[in-house]
């Protein structure tokens, strides 16, 4: 083990030396302005002797679910003496996400962790980064069949299954299990692998136990305001809906006062189960906007992703390819407890 560590440190030293400006052809100061319109340019950000740089690329910046991950990732990075960059499109935009990852490849960061907004589009750039010698992981939303080193996040199928089980339990308790129930689903991006896995888990969990008729699949592109508006609009048009499954808690990130029709629907017996146990989602659930919640551990996601990425960069083995950060189940019994343990976001 000692020999292995020595080997790794020697390799790291050699790598850093080779990347010194003196040896790098790209390190010449003012090495010219790129041809306009070309994406491949000679850099004025030459790699040189510097701390490790790790970049985490969430789906978007405007989604506050990642704030906890960012915080723990930054703290972990600080602790490990590496620089952490948190870069993403402001709103979900797979194409721009690809561009950003390409920018990171060009800048030769040491590691990248990506929350995949569209696996089909992101897969190629992940492979490109890996081929460029960058350690690449996925966080929160995986990109299957890519060359990424590991995935760190929730087991989304399990999360969906947990939501399904919670739904079965509530419906059964209300004595509606034998009835055909009209069910609507709110998701983020139609192509998002993690969300689709949650929906799949949900559907398979209720299958055979409840008679659900899936009447709508609403996609809000991970936008909190859009999520709330879509739900409100849908309920206005279809008050006869019986159940609502939220594969993410976007609709409840904002003030609940903006959803009076939905609140009325809930008061009239509408049943809702939602992913996420963030502070605002718990607050909304406590008001009756959802009867059960299944949470993810974003803090752990940030922490473990940075840790294992640094390990991987340093040549240390990653314990497993699929790092499950676990689930947090919430219902009326522990809403207050969880609220007392979590911090409000205070961002909007």
């Amino acid at each position: 083990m000692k020999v292995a560590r020595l080997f790794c440190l020697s390799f790291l030293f050699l790598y850093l030396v080779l990347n010194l400006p003196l040896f790098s052809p790209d390190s010449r100061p003012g090495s010219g302005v790129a041809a306009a319109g070309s994406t491949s340019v000679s850099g004025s950000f030459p790699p040189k002797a510097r701390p490790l740089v790790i970049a985490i690329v969430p789906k978007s910046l405007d989604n506050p679910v990642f704030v906890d991950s960012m915080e723990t990732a930054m703290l972990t990075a600080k602790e490990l003496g590496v620089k952490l960059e948190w870069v993403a499109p402001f709103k979900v935009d797979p194409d721009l996400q690809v561009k950003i990852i390409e920018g990171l490849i060009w800048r030769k960061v040491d590691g990248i962790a990506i929350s995949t907004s569209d696996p089909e589009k992101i897969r190629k750039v992940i492979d490109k980064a890996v081929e460029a010698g960058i350690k690449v992981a996925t966080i929160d939303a995986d990109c299957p069949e890519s060359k990424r080193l590991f995935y760190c996040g929730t087991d989304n199928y399990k999360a969906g299954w947990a939501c399904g089980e919670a739904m079965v339990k509530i419906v059964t308790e209300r004595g509606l299990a034998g009835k055909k129930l009209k069910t609507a689903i709110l998701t983020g991006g139609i192509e998002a692998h993690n969300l689709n896995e949650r929906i799949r888990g949900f559907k398979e969990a209720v299958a055979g136990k409840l008679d659900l008729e899936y009447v709508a699949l609403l996609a809000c592109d991970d936008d909190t305001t859009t999520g709330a508006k879509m739900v409100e609009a849908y309920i206005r048009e279809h008050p006869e809906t019986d159940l609502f499954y939220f594969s993410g808690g976007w609709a409840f990130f904002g003030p609940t006062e903006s959803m009076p029709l939905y609140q009325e629907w809930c008061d009239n017996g509408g049943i809702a189960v939602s992913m996420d146990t963030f502070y605002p989602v718990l607050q909304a659930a406590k008001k009756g906007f959802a009867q059960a919640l299944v949470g993810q551990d974003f803090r752990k996601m940030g922490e473990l992703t940075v840790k294992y990425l640094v390990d991987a960069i340093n040549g240390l083995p990653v314990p497993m390819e699929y790092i499950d950060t676990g689930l947090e189940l919430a219902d009326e019994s522990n809403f207050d407890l969880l609220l007392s343990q979590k911090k409000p976001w205070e961002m909007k």
Partner: protein
Amino acid sequence: MKILRAVFTGFQNRLVNTFKLRSLRSKFMLSFVFLSTIPLVILAIFSYGVYHDILQQNIQSYTSEVIDRVDRNLEIYLSDLERILELRNDYYNLQFIKLSLAGDVEGNRKFIFRLWENLNNIRNFKTELRDVSITTIGGVTVGCYGVTHTDLAQNVLFQTLANRTAKDDSIAIWGPHPDWLGGPVFSVGKAIHGDYDNFLGIMSIDVDVELLERICGNIRLGKTGYIMLLDEENRIIYHPNRELIGKGIGALLGEASLTDWQQDFTTKRRLGNQIIRVKTFAPANWKIIGLSNRFELATEMQKITGLSLTIIFSTILVLTLMAVYFAHLLTNPLKELQQSMRHASEDLNTNVEIHTMDEIGELSETFNQMLARIRQLMKQSVQEQEKRRRAEMKALQEQIKPHFIYNTLDLIIGLLETNKNEDVINTVEALGAFFRISLSQGQELITIREEAEHVRNYLYIQRRRHGDKYDYAIEIEERLLNKKTIKLILQPLVENAIYHGVRELETPGGLILIKGFLMEPANTICFQVIDNGVGMEPAKMEEINRCLRESGTGQQYFGLSNVNERIRLAFGPEYGLALSPTPGGGVTATIKLPVVEGKG
């Protein structure tokens, strides 16, 4: 003046010889073409010069205007960015910087989240903005794409602003350079200072160089001229040909051209085909360069020249055709007239056909009138010649009156009977001389000497016949004797003086005086046959004179009329015969003749 005239004459002769300007038509055509072409050519040359100058001036002023416009647009854009950068002292910005520098990750998360939103909102103001960011002196950058780390030593914008004093609050520009996504941008930034003017970081805006394309791309200086931009190191930051962006200007226009490009609006002509105007965009120390192609100017001028030459040659062609037509119009009647004149020289009965009412028409008419007059005169001349011949014949017939001959022969017989041989000889000699002079070998004009001799012979014979009833004298000035006169003009007058004057006297003492003298002032020869005979009734004399004035009116007084007629036919109506009474009785017949010099 003489020299000028000589030169002109020389030129004229050379012109005539060179172009063989023998005919009026070719002279007219050449003059017409010359007179119409020369002003055209002068106008074309003058217009060419003026147009060339105006065109060049227009190109230069248009280029300057365009450069000014680019300068203004960049300035306006920059002032907009400057206004945006005033947000740098926003509470959230300052809080982020302070917490970031303090390493407070947990406390900063809400500010980071807020800043992402704010900075993205700002970026959406303008389409060319690629990123809006805050960079702390710790190297942490929060921008539209999240949180990154900046190598401050490599960030020229940061270094520029960091090295300024807090009082210097102006903007700084860096680039174009690749941003962290790899795209070419130029960055505009302002320093952020803390409460004690301590430098905390910068707020910067990355602008896509597409902006330069938007500002300069649509500008065309002529067909191939364009605008390009250089950074302060004379590297091309905008050029319509994207491949040239990033290269040094020296590669494009030659190294030598770089030296004096510091001043605004310098026109350079030494680079062959290009007219170059330069202006420095002061805030970024960029150079805005307008390149117009002189070749286009030349092409434009070639077009104008081509057009001018086409117009000139077309005009010359049209004018030549017109000249040919007009020359034909003008000279054809002249040719016709010439031919008619040639005909007329052979046949006076020809007339010119008149087609026009112009000067040539008038000339033709005058020529026709002249021909008519010539015909009339010829006819008159023929008539007069005829008349003269008849008059002469009559005069001769008068001379050879049978009874005059019989009487003379009787006289000779009488003299022979009386043996006056000497008288016979004289008489025969006189008679012979009389007839010899009468015939004069067919000559019309004889000397006055011969005429006097003729009348003397006649008087000699008649006096021999009539005895001493009258006497005669001939007084002709000596100087007139060799002058010429028509013949046989005195004899009929003498005959009248004898038969109607002195022979009628009842007593002897008649005298016939023949005088010949020169009337000096009028240069007229005057003959007078003066008799002191019985004279004539004034009325009769008046009637005879009237008959003589109105020549050819009567057959009375044939002898006198014949003399008068012949004189008038020979010398004109101002000459002739007139009778007047001789003071003291008798008749004086006066003949006026012109002085006609005899040969020798």
